[in-house]
């Protein structure tokens, strides 16, 4: 098989369905209190559900929210 002619593009910011926002690269995120947090890994997940215990980062808690809703 040959590769695609056009290189596939990759987004720097990705909204995951029912999940966090992925952010690529070295960025500073300011949370609701105005505190700044610098990313420490190649890709980071910023919480969008508001339930994380590690704000501003996603800690997987959103899944409990989705599960409860689907029940």
């Amino acid at each position: 098989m040959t590769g695609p002619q056009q290189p596939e593009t990759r987004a720097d910011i990705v909204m995951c369905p029912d999940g966090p926002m992925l952010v690529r690269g070295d960025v500073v995120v300011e949370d609701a209190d105005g505190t700044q947090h610098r990313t420490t890994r190649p890709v980071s997940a910023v919480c969008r559900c508001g339930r994380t215990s590690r704000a501003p980062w996603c800690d997987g808690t959103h899944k409990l929210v989705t599960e409860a809703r689907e029940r």
Partner: protein
Amino acid sequence: MASLPTPRGPVSEVLVSVLDGNFVEQLTAWPEPAGDDPADPVRVADDALSLWTLHELAYRGFTGVDERWEWHPDLLALRWRLEGELEQRLRKRMPATDRTGDVVADLLRIIADDDAPSLARHLQRHGSVEQAHDLLRQRSIYHLKEADPTSWVIPRLEGGRAKAALVEIQYDEYGAGDPARLHHDLFARGMEACGLSSEPNAYVDDAITEVLEQNNATSMFGLHRRLRGAALGHFAAFESTSSLPSRQLVQGFERLGLPVEVRAYYDEHVEADAVHEQVALRDICGALVEREPDLAEDVLLGAWTCLDLEARTATAMLKRWGVA
């Protein structure tokens, strides 16, 4: 480096003594498997330890064991039998269910349907320090080479999104260039802080059969190009079921007063795996199947096997602790 494990039956007995001896070009035949019934627990344990030992030759090897054994044709012949039987067993365990045709949706369903007992949940509220140490000893077989089995897959992928995303995640697993953050070294420091050995495979003789099978399945998926789909499905399921349990373990270990170093290891995985799960599902498995649609079923096999083996491990451990 690690020492050779204690044999668990006739095949591992001969294998360990062969590896312990001088390198020879030609070996005599392997003994018959222990018992005719492939489900006989002695045979399962013997086969699992034998395969684990053979795979280990491809990772860090054993102290004093000739490194040429890794590719010795007679050892490969034994590996061929053991892997063939393991793969067949794993495929048979997967229930036939309807597929939506969208591999990410099917993966999410397999993960959501998982209702296995959880060791992390037990340790979060109830477990003892002894049980926590027992779990760390069992997990050490994998965590001290965390991410390595998945790295075998990288050269087996064509280019594109799946490959780039896999390397992006592996880079994070290996500390993103910072040796202080290398995940398997974080685990080693956690073990030491608990007064446990961080030597690779120090606890293989304590490992229950289910844990050896977990490791064997992961290595087999990684080492066979043909099974690259299963390797990545396994990886996605593993990462998707790690964030919440890691948080429960941090809480449990805090409650038990375990050292900060071992909590740091699980703490790192709360955030890291919340990211890895998203990338593994969509960018890695989704993109892989887009490029190679025939791999879809193996991706699901890998995911299902990951959860099934963890369920069997958790059940066995809870029974061993007298809480099931």
